[in-house]
C-alpha cells in the first residue's frame, strides 16, 4: 500500500512510520504545519508543532529512508479546530480539540489530500487497532489499555477507519515503543510526550479564551439562585470543576462545591454539591458510526473522557439524537464532550453530548 505517515516529530509517530516501512509499504512522511507562526523550540513537554518538531520529524524520516514533506494545513486547523474550540467554550460546552483534529484534519483534510494524490491510507502513532471484520475494517481499543487512544478516534466513520493505519495498536506499552525507537536509532526516542492542547503552548486555557472572547463578567450562583461570587467569563469553567470558582461564601454545610451547569447567555455558572454531578442519562447529537448504526436499544459501554472509565449503558438512536441510559452513574459530564460507544474492545461510534439528566438517587 502507499501510506502517508503523519509525523509530528514525536516518538510514537516515528515508530509507527518505521513499522509501516517494515511491513513493506511504500511510505511517505508528512509533517502537518498547523500554526502559521510556529515557535522555534519546544519548551519541555509543552506544546508541539514547533519548527524543532518539524526538524525532528525530518530526521526520523531521513533515518527511515523515506521521502518527507511539510504540508501546510494551518488554515484548516484554524477554522476546524481552534475556532471550533473557542466557539464551543463560548457556548458553554467543553470541546475536545484532539477529537476535532482527528475528525477534520488528520482523517479528513490530510486523508482526502493523500487519497487524491494517490495514497491508500494515513498512518499515525495513535494507540488503537484497526482489525478486519466480517463487515469491513473495525476500530478497536489498543492492546495496552493504559495507553489506549481509541476514544479520540471514535469520531471516525467507516470510510475513515478503512483508510487508517495504527501500527502501535498492538504495542504492549509505551516504554516498549521508546525502547524500539532507541533500538532503531531514532533520535526522538527520549523526547518527552506532548501534553495539553497543542495550540495553547503555555497550557493556560483560560487566558487563551479570555484573549479570544474578552471579559464577560457574570455571577456564580447556587441551585436556588443565590449569588455566591462573580466571574469574568463562563468560558473559564467546565462542568465538574471544583477549583478556581472564586466563591466568597462557604457552603452552609461546609462541603466543597462543583460546577453543575453553565449558561453563557445569562453568563451564569451554577454550583452545587458533588452528588448533584452524578449523571444517569445523557443525550447526544451528531452521531458518527463506524459500525452499523444500531436499531433499537443496544447494550454498550460508554466513555466520556480520553482516559475515563467505560461504564455499561443502553443506547438508542432516536432521530437526530442518541439517548443513553447509564447502568452506573458518571460524574463531570459536560455538554460538548464526546461520548464514545464500545462493544467489548470495538468502537461502534461516537456522538457529541448535548444534555444530561441526574442519576435517580
Amino acid at each position, binding site marked *: 500500500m502507499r501510506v502517508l505517515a503523519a509525523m509530528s516529530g514525536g516518538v510514537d509517530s516515528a515508530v509507527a512510520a518505521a513499522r509501516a516501512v517494515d511491513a513493506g509499504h511504500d511510505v*511517505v512522511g508528512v*509533517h502537518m*504545519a498547523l500554526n502559521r507562526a*510556529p515557535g522555534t523550540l519546544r519548551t519541555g513537554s509543552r506544546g508541539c508543532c514547533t*519548527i524543532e518538531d*518539524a526538524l525532528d520529524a*525530518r530526521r526520523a524520516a531521513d533515518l527511515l*529512508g*523515506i*521521502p518527507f*514533506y*511539510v*504540508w*501546510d494545513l494551518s488554515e*484548516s486547523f484554524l*477554522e*476546524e479546530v481552534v475556532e*471550533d474550540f473557542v*466557539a*464551543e467554550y*463560548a*457556548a*458553554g*460546552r467543553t470541546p475536545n480539540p484532539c477529537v476535532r483534529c482527528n*475528525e*477534520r484534519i488528520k482523517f*479528513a*483534510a490530510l*486523508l*482526502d*489530500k493523500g*487519497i*487524491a*494524490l494517490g495514497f491508500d491510507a494515513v498512518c499515525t502513532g495513535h494507540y488503537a487497532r484497526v482489525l478486519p471484520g466480517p463487515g469491513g475494517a473495525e476500530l478497536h481499543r489498543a492492546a495496552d489499555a493504559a495507553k489506549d487512544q481509541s476514544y479520540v478516534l471514535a469520531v471516525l466513520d467507516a470510510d475513515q477507519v478503512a483508510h487508517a493505519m495504527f501500527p502501535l495498536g498492538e504495542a504492549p506499552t509505551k516504554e516498549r515503543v521508546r525502547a524500539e525507537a532507541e533500538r532503531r536509532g531514532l533520535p526522538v526516542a527520549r523526547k518527552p510526550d506532548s501534553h495539553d492542547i497543542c495550540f495553547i503552548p503555555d497550557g493556560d486555557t483560560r487566558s487563551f479564551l479570555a484573549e479570544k472572547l474578552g471579559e464577560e463578567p457574570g455571577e456564580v450562583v447556587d*441551585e436556588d439562585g443565590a449569588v455566591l461570587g462573580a466571574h469574568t467569563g463562563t468560558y473559564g469553567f467546565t462542568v465538574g470543576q471544583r477549583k478556581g470558582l472564586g466563591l466568597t461564601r462557604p457552603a452552609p454545610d461546609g462541603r466543597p462545591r462543583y460546577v*453543575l*451547569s*453553565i*449558561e*453563557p*447567555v*445569562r453568563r451564569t455558572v*451554577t454550583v*452545587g454539591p458533588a452528588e*448533584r*454531578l452524578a*449523571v444517569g442519562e*445523557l*443525550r447526544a447529537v*451528531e452521531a458518527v458510526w463506524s459500525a452499523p448504526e444500531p436499531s433499537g436499544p443496544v447494550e454498550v459501554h460508554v466513555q466520556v473522557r480520553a482516559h475515563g472509565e467505560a461504564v455499561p449503558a443502553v443506547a438508542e438512536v432516536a432521530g437526530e439524537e442518541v439517548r443513553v441510559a447509564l447502568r452506573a452513574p458518571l460524574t463531570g459530564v*459536560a*455538554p*460538548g464532550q464526546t461520548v464514545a460507544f464500545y462493544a467489548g474492545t470495538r468502537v461502534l461510534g461516537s456522538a*457529541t*453530548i*448535548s*444534555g*444530561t*439528566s*441526574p442519576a435517580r438517587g
Partner: protein
Amino acid sequence: MPGRGGRGTTARSYTGGVTAYLDHASTTPLRPEALEAYAAAASLAGNPSSLHSSGRRARAAVEESREALAAAVGARPAEVVWTSGGTEADNLALKGLYWARRDADPRRRRVLVGAAEHHAVLDCAAWLAEHEGADVRLLPVDADGRADLDALRAELADGAGEVALVSLMWANNEVGTVQPVSAAAELAHAAGVPLHTDAVQAVGHLPVDFAASGADALSLSAHKFGGPVGAGALLLRRGTPLVPLQHGGGQELGARSGTLDAPAARATAAALAAALADPGEGERTAALRERLVAGLRAAVPGLVLRGDPVLDAAHRLPGNAHVTVAGCEGDSLLYLLDAAGVECSTGSACQAGVPRPSHVLLAMGLDEGEAAGALRFSLGWSSTDADVDAALAAIGPAVERARRASGSARTSRARRRRPAAATGAPSAGTAAEAS
C-alpha cells in the same frame, strides 16, 4: 539535495526511476574541475596568513584564485573580499555600507532595495530598520519582475543626501528577470549614492563585468556556478568605505576577518573558469529551457510563464523557467514531481519546509491563489534533453492530480462540517433538568 554527479550521470530516485535534477538555481552540481582543484589544495597544509613556506604556498593559492576570479568578472584582485557565500556577501554589503555611510553623515539612513530581492538582502534591510534606525524603502517591480527605475529616480530626487545605499539584484532568483543594474548605478552615482548588486544567480550564467556595470559592490556565490557550497565573495570597488561584520585576524584588508580558505578559493576560481570556458554552455542551457517552456505550455492548459517573456540573456537567466499553474498547490506539485523523479522547487522561501506565497510573485501583482501554484525549474551545466523529457512527461499527470487534491480538500471540509454550533445558546442540558 544532491543532484546528478555530472553530465550523463544519473541517480536513482526513491521510486526506482531516474532522477531529473531541475533545481540548479538552488545549487548546481560541483564541476569536476572544481572538485579536482579543491582536493589538490585541501591535501596541502598551511594557513595563508603564516609566514613559512607552507603558509606562502597556501597564500599563493588564495591570491592566484583571487586574480583569476577578478579577471573573470571585470574586477581588480584587491576588490575581491572572500566570504562564506552569497548570504554573507549580502550582509557585509548592506550592513557594512550602511554603517560606513551613516558614520560619515548621520542623516544617511535611507536604504533603497528592490521589492523582489532575495531574503538575504530583504531581511538584512529589515534588520537594519529594526535595530539600526534605517528607513527602508522597497522599489516596486513591474508585472515581469523588473525594478521600476522611475521609482528609484523619485526616491533619489527626494533627498539624496539621506540615502545610504541602493541594492538591486542582477537577476531574480525566482523568475529569472534581468534587472537594469547599470542604469540604476548611473542614477545612484549621479546622486552620490553607492549601489550594491546581488549577482548570485548571474555570475557564471550571464556576462558580468563589475567595472562596466558601475556597481560599487557585488555579491557572488560559488555553488551557483559549480563551485563548492560555503564559498563566495563580495566585490567592493576600491575606495568604497565599508564597516566589517567580522573582526579578528584582519584578513582581506580588515574587511572580513577569518582564516582564508585556500581550497575553496581554488575551487571557486576553477568552477568559474570552467563555466566561462565554453561559450556554448549558456546557449545550450537556453535552448533546453526554451524546449521546456514550450512543452510545459503545451502539456498544461492554464500554465503561465512568469518573469520576462523574452527568452534571451539580456532579459532572463538562461536556465530559468518559472511557471504558475492555476488551481494547484505548490506542495502537492512538488511531491508528485519528486515521486516521478523530477526535482524542482516552488522557488520561494520556506518556513519549516512550508512553502509560503512568494514575495516576488506578490510584488509582481499576483494574488495569493495565483502564487500558490508556483514551480521553478532551473537548468544548468549538467542538464540534458533527458531531464527536459522527464519533466514534460511528469507535469501533465502531476497537475491533474494536484488539481484533484486541491479540490478534495475543499469538498472534504464542506462535507464534514457539522451544523454550526449554536453559539450563545445555553448549554442544552443541566443537572437541574428533570427527565
